[in-house]
């Protein structure tokens, strides 16, 4: 089998995650989908590192994880505080961007 399949898988996962981001309204779920996309990327990186035979890909994936962790922390904090104020976790309720 060709390890490129991993890449295809990554693409599919990424796409699915993107679809989730676009479709779901619950902030938490949207956020999970973002994580899914990140993971897809990571998979791609890892695969690449295997294909190229050097570890840089893994390093990047590693950094991605770290950043993802930080991002999750902040993101969830935001969600919580938003929920506190508006008693809802729906992204559409925060539609003040147009002002």
């Amino acid at each position, binding site marked *: 089998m060709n390890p490129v399949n991993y890449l295809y898988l990554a693409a599919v996962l990424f796409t699915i995650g993107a679809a989730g981001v*676009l479709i779901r309204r619950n902030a938490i779920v949207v956020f999970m989908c973002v994580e899914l996309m990140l993971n897809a990327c990571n998979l791609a990186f890892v695969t690449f590192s295997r294909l190229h035979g050097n570890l840089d890909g893994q*390093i990047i994936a*590693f950094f991605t994880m770290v950043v993802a962790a930080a991002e999750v922390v902040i993101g969830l904090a935001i969600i919580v505080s938003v929920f506190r104020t508006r008693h809802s976790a729906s992204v559409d309720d925060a539609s003040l961007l147009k002002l």
Partner: protein
Amino acid sequence: MSALAAAGTTSIGEAVQFWLLATVAVLGALATVLMKKAVHSALSLAGTMIVLAVFYLANGAYFLGIVQIVVYTGAIMMLFLFVVMLVGVTAADSLKETIRGQRLLAGLCVLGFGILLIAGIANAALKDFDGLGQANSGGNVQGLAALVFTKYVFAFEITGALLITAAVGAMVLTHRERAQRPAGQRERAEARIREGKHVPPLPAPGVYARHNAVDIPGLLPDGTPSELTVNPTLRARGQIRDVSGEALQELAALEQRSAEWVTGGRGEDGRSASGAKEARK
């Protein structure tokens, strides 16, 4: 498996493993997107991540594989679950779309994007590849470490700073400064009076001799359950045990028996005794 990853080839085993787990991963991803309840989404995502961890391992990224399980599945996803609980898993948010055309557009974009992505990968045409043989020769972790502390040391430091900042940020965001003294019992009572509803404290849940639980709504005089008497979270989760039906039946039965008792009391002894006996059966 590790040997395979090191080599420039792949084996049947890996293929089988790939196809099986890939299916699982995709299903998990779909579930994440499609599940009505956030909890289920979180769990299926966790599943997908574990599968990915396996794939990492299969690709010779042992360190990452472990980290994936520990950090992602172990920490991040749990954090998600906590938040889900904290936020209160209100009834699964309806998947009904509110923005006009959003779903159609999203579908189109996603479809096009996916196709293009796959097309791109396809015409990248990666046939043969050199495995991680000598890269991992000194051990995967050591290899990573070497890179992290030499080539990527600045990035590494910066991510460290990022994490600290994130931690502080999270605290700042979630920690709520009380603007004024919390309302005491007296104020709350007065507020209730002012609003004029629920002047008395909220009614207790229905507690009966047989079962004694907070998930059973109390019954109104006509026997219908009162939503007020149970915790809203339970209500939201639909975890209310409604006992109004059987309660009404019992009531009916009780009345019938009492009625028979009355009539039986009018006749001669034997009848009444027999009536009583039947009634007892």
